[in-house]
């Protein structure tokens, strides 16, 4: 905590929810395309690199003989993704299946940052910031990239672009246009605008809900970790605050264990929806 005064609960949470961005202070406008979240970029890129390097290591060591534990673990994942993608996407999967694997492992890694002690990396960063001669109270750092809407919407936007690409690739531009105006209600000039509007809404809803779902889950999870941390920080030497501290330990344990399920499940859901949306681009209505 800063030397002058300990932050109150509200300040603590706001501090933890503020990104390290290219402005150096909190972004004022809701949308500002000139700003970067440096922490999200750093952690997502690092974890992505870690994920693909681990996979590449497994791939480099892969033998058709008896697999070791590491290889078997990666193979289980690959087989899982392969069987899921095969059952959902009918067509050439030489890019889609690896994409799904990347999505699953990368998002799992980013989500798993939530399980690190909440204050550990921000405190280290604060120390570095102070050593560099700045005020540690302004040392912002968020370590869970998937709790940043930019990251999750960025990925779901990537999925949308792939959907559009595969729609054109599989059905041809004319075929896709035909589908945009004639599905889902049918081929009639009166229905063309309604069909097109429905298709647009569908694409927007798919993409936004895809990104928002992951963001919402991870943001809420992070927030609950903060509330639990506040409960633990209530320790002030009295009996009541001791009970609160015990409650913090208990709730933190329970929530972290439950969160193991959530981070895996959310990564899996994001992967499955990626496959489903791209699979829809492969099928005609």
């Amino acid at each position, binding site marked *: 905590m800063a030397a002058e005064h300990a932050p109150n609960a509200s300040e603590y949470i706001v501090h933890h929810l503020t990104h390290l961005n290219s402005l150096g202070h909190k972004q004022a406008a809701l*949308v500002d395309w000139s700003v970067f979240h440096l922490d*999200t970029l750093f952690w997502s890129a690092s974890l*992505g690199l870690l994920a*693909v390097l681990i996979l590449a290591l497994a791939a480099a060591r892969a033998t058709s*003989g008896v697999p070791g534990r590491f290889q078997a673990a990666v*193979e289980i994942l690959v087989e899982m993704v392969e069987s899921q993608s095969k059952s959902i996407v009918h067509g050439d999967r030489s890019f889609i299946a690896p994409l799904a694997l990347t999505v699953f492992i990368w998002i799992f890694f980013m989500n798993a940052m939530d399980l690190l002690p909440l204050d550990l990396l921000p405190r280290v960063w604060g120390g570095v910031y102070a050593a560099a001669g700045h005020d540690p109270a302004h040392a912002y750092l968020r370590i869970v990239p998937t709790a940043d809407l930019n990251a999750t919407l*960025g990925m779901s936007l990537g999925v949308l672009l792939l959907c559009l690409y595969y729609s054109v690739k599989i059905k041809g531009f004319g075929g896709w246009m035909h589908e945009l105006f004639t599905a889902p209600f049918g081929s009639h000039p009166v229905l063309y605008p309604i069909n097109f509007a429905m298709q647009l809404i569908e694409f927007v809803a798919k993409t936004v809900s895809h990104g928002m779902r992951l963001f919402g889950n991870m943001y809420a999870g992070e927030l609950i970790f903060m509330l639990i941390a506040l409960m633990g920080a209530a320790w002030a030497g009295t009996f009541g605050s001791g009970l609160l501290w015990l409650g913090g330990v208990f709730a933190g344990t329970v929530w972290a264990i439950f969160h193991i399920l959530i981070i895996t499940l959310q990564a899996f859901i994001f992967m499955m929806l990626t496959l489903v949306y791209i699979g829809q681009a492969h099928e005609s209505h």
Partner: protein
Amino acid sequence: MNLNATLFAQLVVFLILAWFTMKFVWPPIMKALDERAGKIADGLAAADKAKADLAHAEKKASEELRKARESAAEFRSGAEKQVAQLIEEARAEGARIVNAAREAAENEAAAASQRAREALREHVAVLAVAGAERILRKEINAQAHAELLTQLKSEL
């Protein structure tokens, strides 16, 4: 919760990572998996084939055993037949030899008795002549009485 250019950076990172996985991760692992599946299939097929071969070999062995037993029985009965024949032949030969010996002995005995009879006749003739001489007190002319003597001899 602000939107900014991080979004596009994340999009690019996303596509790069997926591309990397497609290029360097997925193919070797799938290749290893397919190869292992092939090996396992081959192993199972080889095991099946070995099992079939074993059954075949067992059948063949029992067949051979049965054949050997049959031919041994054949040999034994052949040998027994041959032995019986040999014994039969030997018995016949023995009988033949005994008969021949008996015949020869009988012949010899007959000849001997004939000879003895001849000699006895001779002696009897001589005795008869000597007796007659004694009776007649004179010598009988052997030549003169040869016919008589011969007649006498044949009468004996």
